[in-house]
């Protein structure tokens, strides 16, 4: 994991072209995802994958803060919800009394700006705390946002929120149609994923990981640890905001329950199930969560149990994964890889440090 990747000179290795450097797994997954609409049903495209990508983006914003910054924020769903509310307020919805009806190219940037401002504010408050206290303060903010939106009728339309919030009809495409929406969410999920991956090795991301590992050392190198942490919250808020707008378009509505305490915890569950060590964990976690949430009910009914208990299955799944691997599915995967490389003589991983 070198920052500066030029090994040319030391050994005369043929420099690889950019597409040769992309691992095979990326080609495979990319290809399958691109051709998915040729064989998958509309339900799978819109409900399973659309939702996976959206939840993945929001969980990715938590993964960025938690994995690289060591800060677990429970307010990422709140920021997503804020962006969703803003797109409903600035853009169009069925609540014509409140919605301003601005065109999409004004409403979307404004919604994202406000989400980033909120994220920065939350970060500015939260970086003064560490560990469990960060969780508490961000959870308190999430709860405050939930109750505020539920009780405020002038801006947030209270309990019922906004319905009829639809994506723009751009290029004559109905972006809420299953295939179009699938590609829309895939595009943004991929963009966010690669952005996080890229930034993790850029000076900003490296410094963030440095602050996580050794704040005192980073100060002695001239870094302002607090400023770096707040900036990380701002960037994570941009990701969460994108996810929030897509989420609002998918269900065509936004209400206090979208960004309540339950969904805030769900995002943490998604990020932890997948694993916070690599950005892909957010999407793996989201996929498992969506599958469980969609099919647990049917599975329970088929077993003759009450369908209302589907949360129990999700909880059990969460427990099992965290019990066996605190690093989520990614941790299990790494354990398996390590055990495969194990040298039978010394009983130690081949390339593990």
């Amino acid at each position, binding site marked *: 994991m070198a920052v500066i990747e030029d090994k040319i000179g030391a050994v005369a290795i043929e420099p690889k072209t950019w597409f040769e450097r992309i691992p095979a797994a990326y080609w495979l997954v990319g290809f399958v995802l691109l051709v998915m609409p040729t064989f998958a049903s509309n339900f799978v495209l819109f409900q399973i994958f659309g939702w996976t990508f959206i939840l993945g983006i929001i969980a990715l914003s938590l993964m960025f803060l938690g994995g690289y910054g060591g800060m677990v924020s429970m307010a990422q769903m709140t920021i997503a919800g804020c962006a969703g509310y803003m797109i409903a307020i600035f853009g169009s919805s069925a609540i014509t009394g409140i919605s301003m009806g601005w065109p999409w190219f004004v409403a979307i940037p404004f919604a994202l700006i406000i989400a980033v401002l909120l994220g920065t504010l939350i970060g500015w408050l939260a970086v003064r705390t560490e560990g469990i206290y960060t969780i508490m303060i961000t959870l308190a903010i999430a709860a405050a946002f939930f109750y505020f939106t539920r009780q405020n009728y002038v801006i947030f339309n209270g309990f019922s929120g906004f319905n009829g919030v639809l994506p723009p009809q751009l290029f004559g495409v109905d972006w809420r149609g299953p295939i179009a929406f699938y590609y829309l969410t895939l595009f943004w999920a991929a963009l966010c994923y690669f952005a996080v991956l890229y930034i993790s090795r850029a000076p900003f991301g490296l410094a963030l990981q440095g602050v996580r590992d050794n704040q005192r*050392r980073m100060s002695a*190198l001239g870094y*302002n640890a607090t400023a770096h942490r707040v900036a990380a919250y701002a960037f994570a808020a941009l990701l969460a905001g994108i996810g929030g707008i897509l989420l609002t378009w998918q269900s065509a509505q936004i209400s206090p329950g979208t960004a309540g305490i339950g969904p805030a915890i769900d995002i943490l569950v998604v990020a932890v199930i997948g694993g916070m060590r690599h950005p892909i964990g957010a999407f793996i976690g989201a996929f498992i969560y969506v599958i469980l949430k969609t099919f647990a009910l049917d599975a329970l009914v088929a077993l003759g149990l009450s369908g209302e208990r589907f949360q129990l299955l999700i909880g059990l799944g969460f427990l099992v994964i965290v019990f066996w691997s605190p690093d989520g599915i990614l941790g299990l995967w790494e354990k398996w890889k390590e055990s495969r490389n194990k040298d039978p003589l010394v009983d130690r991983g081949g390339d593990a440090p």
Partner: protein
Amino acid sequence: MNAPVSVSERLNATGTANALELRGVSKLFGALAALQDINISVKPGERRAVLGSNGAGKTTLFNCITGDFLATSGSIRFFGEDISAFPPHERIRRGLRRTYQISLLFTGLSVRDNIYLSCVGVSRSRFSFLRPRRNDALVAAADNLVDMVHLSDERDTIVSNLSYGQQRQLEIAVALAGAPRFILFDEPAAGLSPTERRELVEILNGLPGHMGYIIIEHDMDVALRVAESVTMMHNGQIFKEGKPAEIEEDPEVQALYLGGVDG
């Protein structure tokens, strides 16, 4: 925090001022006075050794200068500018550097990446979202520093795989990033073999002449070969100041330090 600076003070800051000027610096931990009324002036380019037994307050002195601790009272001026209330990163950005007694390197990163991070820390690309390009100036600067501390063969080695002595050398390279004006070395020779000590002396004597430093060192041999003046500390106070030869000859110093700890 930044009081308006008068013209004379500004002129002071550029040339004639001392690199480091401590006036009446004290540091209390509860009732314990780790530092008491310390007055030190170090000229630009001067190389000073600080000696003293364990608990004399040497590292606390460093922590107060770099801002790891705020001094309880007194003022610290760096090239004429009062930095007493600045947070550590602001002091570092003004050209002050330090090394730590216990190495605080990033053990999962390579030698060059560690130095690169320190070069970025004092540059404007601290918040850059863009990865370095091949011809990046900071990468080149990091490469130069790798050579400067004799680690060219270990450029891409992960720090946890370096020997202890090499880690201390890397620690020095990290402190040299971004053209510092003054460096605080906290026992760089501790735990080094005689060969490694010789190499350390070579590195320190090879630093550019304008780069002053204070070095905390138990080993008199090393200290006297790399410093042109010596400050003796005892129980949080300055005990003696002078040329290395004077200090070495001083009967009080011998009784206290050479007789007390080493012999």
